[in-house]
């Protein structure tokens, strides 16, 4: 991204723009030389600080000319916990539902679910429960961010590449 001081305007790549009443096509920045950009008064934007994950933080861009910095304020922890608990349970459900038919078949035919699949399904539940416990225990947003990093087990058919 570039900043045009004389019009206090930010120019985004692959987007047409107008300066001094003259229109420039979307790919102008790609083709223009450094000198062309300087002549037009464009300065490349630099970024200071870290932009946190806006799923967890209210991120405000502080635009000071060609320098952009960030203010990152944690979102409400309880609301985030509620959201990620639901998401974790949904993820576990989506993994289990694919082999639910095995359980149904086993019940209907008085047979057993293959042992490796039983193990896998238990591991999914265990991973989910571990994550749920960690989410509930998170004391702050960084702890919550760590808690949601769930390593789900691979099912018995998985072939690593």
């Amino acid at each position, binding site marked *: *991204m*570039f900043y045009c001081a004389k019009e206090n305007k*930010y120019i*985004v*790549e*692959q*987007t*047409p723009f*107008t300066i001094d009443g003259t229109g420039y*096509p*979307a*790919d102008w*920045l*790609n*083709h*223009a*030389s*450094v000198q062309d*950009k300087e002549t037009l008064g464009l300065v*490349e934007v630099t970024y200071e600080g870290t932009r946190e994950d*806006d*799923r967890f933080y*209210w*991120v405000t*861009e502080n*635009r000071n000319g060609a320098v952009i910095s960030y203010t990152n304020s944690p979102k409400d922890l309880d*609301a985030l916990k509620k*959201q990620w608990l*639901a*998401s*974790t349970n*949904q*993820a576990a459900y*989506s*993994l289990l539902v*694919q082999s639910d038919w095995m359980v149904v078949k086993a019940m209907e035919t008085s047979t057993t679910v293959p042992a490796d699949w039983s193990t896998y399904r238990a591991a999914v539940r265990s991973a989910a429960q571990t994550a749920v416990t960690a989410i509930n225990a998170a004391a702050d947003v960084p702890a919550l961010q760590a808690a*949601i*990093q*769930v*390593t*789900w087990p*691979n*099912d018995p*058919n*998985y*072939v*690593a*590449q």
Partner: protein
Amino acid sequence: MSDYLGRIITKTPTPPSPTSASGVWSLDEALQYQKAGKWPPGYAISRSVRLRSSASAYFNRTLTTPTSSQKYTWSGWIKRGKLDSSGLQGIFCPYSSGTVYGYLAWYQDGIRIFDRLSGGTNFLLQTTAVYRDASAWYHIVYAVDTTQATAANRVRLYVNGVEVTAFSTSTYPTQNNSTTTNSAIAHYIGYDISNTGYFDGYQTEINFIDGQALTPDYFGYADTATGVWQPIPYTGTYGTNGFYLNFSDNSAATAAAIGKDYSGNGNNWTPTNISVTAGATYDSMVDSPSMYGADTGVGGEVRGNYATWNAVAKASSQPTFSNGNLDLAAAAAAWSGAVGTIGVTSGKWYWEVVNGNADTFVGICGDNLVLATADPQTLTGTILYYGADGRKRVDGTLSAYGASYTTETIGVALDIDGGTVTFYKSNSSQGSISLSSSTLNGRTIFPFIAKYASTANINFGQRPFSYTAPSGYKALNTQNLPVPTINNGANYMAATLYTGNGATQSLVNTVNNISFQPDFVWIKDRSAGYQHSLQDVVRGTGASKKLYSSLSEAENGANSVYGYLSSFDTSGFSVSIGASGAQQVNASGTTYVGWQWKGGGTAVSNTSGTITSSVSASTTAGFSVVTYTGSGSSATVGHGLGVAPSMIIIKNRGSAQDWRVYHTSVGVNAYLALNTPAASASDSGWTATSSTTFTVGGSGAQYNASTNTYVAYCFAPIAGYSAFGTYTGNGSTDGPFVYLGFRPRFVMWKNASAVEAWLIEDTARSTYNEVALELYPSSSSAEAAGSSRSPTQQFDYLSNGFKVRGAQTQTNGSGNTIIYAAFAENPFKYARAR
């Protein structure tokens, strides 16, 4: 001007090519079209009819004794509405009784062709491909000639000009059988009685030819510039039962008007539950496979492919879409969210929404919205206007704004150039909201709605607006989208398939008469499990210049003896046998794919950085090949792209070091390794980027050891051609939808959160959806089919992006960050549905 059938012929619709000014044909183009017999090239389809399945809408007519009981052709343009993975939606359906009927239909989202005689099935075909792209138009031709000697030639199906040959079910008619279709019984458009299957979506330009089995080139052609299938007027004879419906007369919902046959036969069709009364049920649309016209803001005027709600954009709670995806219904159990099919980064746009109650947030969202994770009204990446109390909600935060609303028309005026969005209640402005107050600033922006326990219908301008748009604001359709720099990705990126011959071979990358000389070629065998082989124009050809994405091996190492790229050719490349064979590029009988990118040809010296580099750069395609010699301390290297790259792939040429990959979504000081499945890792010495250079901040051997030589492949996004982004997996077979702004040809993925292999899937190998043929840059494994793995790892490549259809961690691990690099067949502006 008009031809004798009342159809409009004009040169206006076809978009200008990069070599011609708007609306003016270059002599070269004119001669090309005339040579192909396609002059003038633009053919204007002025209207389509929306068939609302919720209203049980259809057309019907009872045919008479046909010209031929053995030969006919149906051709039509279709844009899907409601998708239905289990049901049947009739497109063209004869019905006499429960034992004598047939249909051309969507079934389980594939195409199903059935014809039943009183004695049983006459023929039945079900495509292996699924067609779940409701964001653009399909052209379908279905031709029957039961006199053919070869059974498979008796029923033929074409989509967008290409014959479909993969069927999960195929029963062909006995030679010389008569058919129920085109017999003297009732026929229906949009309704199959046998399954009570109503079509939902749009149809236009329907030609039915009685007595001939025709190929699609009677009804369309591949445009010479874009390669995209375009309509042309059918000029042949129709036969007794033949008809031509273009739905252009919307003066009345009668057989003599909207159902009028323009073939000259007078075979008009009677509409049922089709409305031409203004309002939400108005079914005469300007949504069209043609693009033309200027926008004055009244709606219902510009022809093009219009935005609708995106039926495949997964929300945590999915609303029910209907009526050509212009209506939605949200259940009472949870807030539902929906986004539009067209995203924009510039311009001024207007649309209208009418809601069923006040539990509504009408608004916009950015491409940073992660729709699947929570109540959509609360999410970052949205600017919303709340019905219940009139407040606005910016990135989830409520504050005072305007008046409350319920069933009034809410206008949305999005001015990206000016950085504002303004909501109108019954044409009364509620005030502008600055985009810079939100996370949407500088992003691709979409129409958005969050709803609870009610309905909403939207008008993007495919029918007249209730209120004229503010001055300068346009309807959201492909005609109004900006003309992209690259209108055909085949000019800059190709995926070429070939079979090795064990010697020397020249490969051609031509697609629809478009070819180019590549500057970077990446070869992988499909069938045997040999290493990847990468060569570029800057390092040069020959066995000593090979690198391997699946290995850390340096140039001229142990694998250099297994064949090599011997030349970059005008329209492709050549491969030759090495000292110990040609396994990696040309083994006899082995199948290969060659991915190719166009750079800037012969390298030039670049002194933008503190290290002088050699650069072959295409600023048009956003791709450069860079070689440099490391300094052993913090340095910058010129890349020649003019804008900051979004992805850089670096390899130490002389030492066995891992590949390094910078991707904008992983960010600076973090990296991935192309030759390993490792998750992203940190390295403070790793790269930062600017419009002129990338930074190699330390002395890491992977990118900047003193006197070591390196090659870097740099990519910057080009709107409509390439994209480098990220999405969050949901672990479901109903996975995320990723908007690219183009129909992809090639996508490469990596789960940045987990130890999972890199993955590439392309449309040269997977010629239809689901796309599922996998190759792994970090592995020499041969091609695998996603459907043979569990959980499956498949995708739908669509006119405007891709939809994840597999649950596998590799590309859809729940909560994982998945990065991608994608390259286009065509920009969405021109693309057909896939």
